[in-house]
């Protein structure tokens, strides 16, 4: 049964309802024909009762078939072309039988063929329709043949038959043409309708898309304008989240940002939470790569969870279980830089769509830009604050320095590399008799205009040498220039202003009023001078008479007396030396020593000193080595004073070197200066004492030192003399092995 039904369905039904209407019309016509046939058959019955009965049975059968078909059509049966063809066939056969039964050619039922032809024309394509018309014509001819003999046919009725056949054909052609035209028309209409429908659908879809796009743009605009209203990150994030939630239709969501220092995710905004978030957010236990948020961060791509129980990326919090079913998570990122993640929750499973995701992604991008802007703003603000603080500190420092500069009693003058005056403090203005307004920005010479030209030259020269030469870099001794005017004495010291690359940027000149010091020193010097004179007069008598007695001029004296007299003489000589040195040093300190500076050949000076001391050195059984190279440059110096210095060093060398030792005197050129080294193999100096040997009255604690006459003033005097020549003096020594005293003097550049 199933099979039959399936076969029936496959053969006689189709998807389209193409034939439903025509079949209904056909059934209506058939049922009308049935009713008419039944009426004719029974109201004016056939004379043969059997024929009437048979006709009734056939009519009933035909009626039943059509009732069944009606029911089937009623229940949604969609007939196929094969079914319609079969039914048309049945119609034709049934009508032909009816015509045959009702006297054949004379029956007027043949008119009904036109109904069938019409229905065929309407239903079927022209080619199939023709076969039915051929069939109708054939059957009608057959019916006519059966009901009449051939001879008859060829007479009058034949014409009627042919005329009817022609009429059938004409009806078929005409109906077919009409039907075809109708079909073409219908087809065109259908195509048009289809086009219209498609266009309407497309329009509707486009409209829907546009509306959606408009909504999305509106939401994004709202979010963007919300994001730009404030730079308060927490507030803005919460507001943006609310707008997104509203747009997507969810009640719960959160924004988590990655803390770059700890790698933790921090809740910065949350919607639908029971308690509010603290300012600055709340740290979560999620980290990069952990949980859904961590996954999104790691992969930098959005994720939709349709059911949280089915997705292992979702870490279910037992307390919140069952609250949400769907999750949409999107990264907050620009390029590869992921700042955080936004999560949206919904209680229904399968809630989030690709459109939601698209919208939220667009919003997330805006939020990311906003976060970056906020960061940038914060950075700029911090930078500005820091710069402001720095500026304030610098201003405070500057005014502090200015206050210090103005309050000190020393004069301070700052000049640049072009000898232009940059700053002059109050004391300097007083000392120099100028005002700041007149001189700042002017050449430094304007500053010293109240002084003699040679003083000005000396000051300018000292300052410009610091700028011009490498002296600034290796600057150690302070150049001092004295400025004297109206009994007032100023000492000027110079120091270079070096930048980080040790380039000289200018010179600081410190002026000190030493008038009072100078007066005191001169008074002291004069006092010493008087004392010295007063001491030398009795010493002359003591020494002179002792010498006279020792020479035997005053008669003979015993050997013991001679010995005692020698002690007196030695001590008087020592006293005389001490007085001489005291005079020297007090005059040096008072600045009363005037040098007769002229070009000097150090080799000559060295030979002179060696010649004068040679005898003593030999007497002490010491060896002297002299190393004087040829072509030494000349130095600037006072001959007598340099002789004094070198004599002091060589005599110290032989005094403190035991017999059998060696003294070396060497001259050589070093760093643009002429250096003199006096070395000995003597007792040496302990490292702790090596600086003290240049102190006044210092004498080392050593037997050999105590045995020698000495005042403890020779070296300080020598060092002062060298330094006043612009040179340096120093010592290298090892206790028990010997010492090397060296001094250097500037050479005369030729």
């Amino acid at each position, binding site marked *: 049964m199933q099979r039959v039904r399936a076969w029936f369905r496959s053969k006689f039904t189709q998807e389209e309802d193409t034939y439903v209407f025509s079949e209904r019309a056909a059934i209506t016509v058939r049922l009308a024909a049935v009713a008419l046939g039944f009426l004719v058959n029974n109201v004016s019955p056939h004379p043969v009762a059997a024929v009437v009965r048979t006709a009734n049975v056939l009519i009933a059968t035909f009626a039943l078939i059509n009732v069944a078909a009606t029911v089937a059509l009623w229940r949604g049966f969609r007939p196929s072309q094969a079914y319609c063809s079969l039914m048309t066939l049945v119609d034709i056969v049934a009508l032909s039988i009816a015509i045959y039964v009702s006297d054949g050619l004379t029956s007027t039922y043949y008119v009904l063929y036109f109904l069938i032809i019409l229905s065929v024309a309407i239903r079927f394509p022209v080619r199939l329709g023709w076969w039915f018309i051929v069939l109708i014509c054939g059957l009608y001819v057959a019916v006519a043949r059966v009901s009449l003999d051939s001879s008859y046919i060829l007479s009058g009725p034949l014409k009627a038959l042919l005329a009817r056949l022609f009429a059938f054909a004409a009806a078929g052609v005409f109906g077919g043409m009409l039907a075809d035209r109708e079909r073409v028309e219908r087809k065109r209409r259908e195509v048009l309708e289809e086009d219209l429908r498609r266009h309407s659908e497309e329009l509707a879809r486009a409209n829907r898309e546009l509306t959606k796009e408009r909504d999305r743009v509106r939401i994004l605009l709202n979010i963007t304008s919300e994001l730009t209203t404030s730079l308060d990150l927490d507030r803005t994030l919460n507001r943006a989240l609310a707008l997104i939630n509203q747009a997507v239709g969810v009640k719960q969501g959160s924004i988590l940002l990655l803390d770059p220092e700890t790698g933790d995710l921090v809740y910065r905004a949350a919607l639908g939470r029971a308690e509010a978030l603290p300012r600055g957010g709340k740290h979560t236990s999620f980290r990069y790569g952990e949980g859904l948020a961590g996954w999104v961060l790691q992969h930098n791509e959005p994720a939709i969870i349709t059911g949280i129980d089915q997705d292992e990326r979702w870490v279910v919090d037992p307390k919140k279980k069952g609250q949400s079913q769907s999750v949409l998570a999107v990264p907050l990122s620009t390029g590869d830089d992921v700042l955080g993640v936004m999560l949206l929750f919904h209680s229904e499973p399968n809630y989030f769509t690709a459109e939601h995701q698209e919208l939220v992604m667009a919003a997330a991008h805006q939020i990311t830009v906003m976060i970056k802007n906020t960061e940038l703003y914060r950075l700029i603000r911090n930078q500005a604050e820091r710069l402001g603080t720095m500026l304030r500190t610098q201003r405070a420092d500057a005014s502090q320095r200015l206050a210090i500069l103005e309050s000190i009693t020393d004069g301070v003058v700052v000049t640049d590399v072009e000898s232009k005056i940059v700053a002059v403090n109050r004391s300097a203005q007083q000392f120099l008799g100028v005002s700041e307004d007149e001189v700042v920005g002017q050449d430094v010479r304007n500053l010293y205009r109240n002084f003699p030209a040679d003083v000005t030259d000396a000051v300018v020269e000292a300052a410009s040498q610091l700028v011009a030469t490498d002296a600034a870099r290796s600057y150690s001794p302070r150049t001092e220039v004295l400025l004297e005017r109206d009994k007032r004495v100023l000492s000027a010291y110079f120091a270079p202003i070096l930048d980080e690359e040790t380039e000289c940027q200018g010179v600081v000149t410190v002026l000190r009023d030493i008038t009072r010091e100078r007066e005191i020193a001169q008074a002291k010097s004069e006092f010493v001078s008087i004392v010295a*004179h007063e001491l030398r007069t009795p010493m*002359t008598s003591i020494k002179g008479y002792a010498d*006279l007695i020792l020479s035997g001029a005053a008669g003979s004296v015993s050997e013991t007396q001679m010995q005692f007299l020698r002690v007196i003489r030695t001590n*008087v000589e020592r006293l005389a030396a001490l007085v001489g040195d005291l005079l020297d040093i007090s005059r040096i300190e008072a600045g009363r020593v*005037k040098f007769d500076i002229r070009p000097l050949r150090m080799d000559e000076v060295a030979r002179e000193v060696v010649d004068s001391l040679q005898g003593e050195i030999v007497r002490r059984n010491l060896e002297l080595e002299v190393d004087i190279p040829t072509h030494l440059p000349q130095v600037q110096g006072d001959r007598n004073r340099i002789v004094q210095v070198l004599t002091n060093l060589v005599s110290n060398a032989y005094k403190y070197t035991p017999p059998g030792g060696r003294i070396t005197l060497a001259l050589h050129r070093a760093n643009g200066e002429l250096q003199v080294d006096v070395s000995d193999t003597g007792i040496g100096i302990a490292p702790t004492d090596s600086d003290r040997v240049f102190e006044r009255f210092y004498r080392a604690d050593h037997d050999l030192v105590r045995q020698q006459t000495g005042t403890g003033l020779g070296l300080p005097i020598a060092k002062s003399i060298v330094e006043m020549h612009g040179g340096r003096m120093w010592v290298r020594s090892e206790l028990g092995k010997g010492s090397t005293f060296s001094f250097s003097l500037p050479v005369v550049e030729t």
Partner: protein
Amino acid sequence: MAKILIAEDEKDIRDLVVFSLTYGGFEAISALNGVDAVAKAEAELPDLILMDVRMPTMSGYEACERLKQNPATRDIPIVFLSAKGQEAEIRQGLSAGAEEYILKPFAPDELVKRVREILRRTDRG
């Protein structure tokens, strides 16, 4: 026998020099100050004058200048004896016309030796 004038206000030193010169074979005459020295020099015309710098009434420099202005005494060599010893003073002394400058304290035999040398040098011995 050469005649040496010694001008010195300090008696001990004057006596010392006089004794030394006499012992050394010279005739020594002494003056107590600058004024005395100028007067004695003009009167005695000595072969050499030993002159202290700091003396009352007239300093050694002044006396030296006076004597150098007088044609009679202009050529007598003058040697200063001084307890001062700075270059400036020595220069001042020499510029006043002195032959030499001997610093106190001195050794008497050395003084006599120097006197001899100067006399020989100036052709007065």
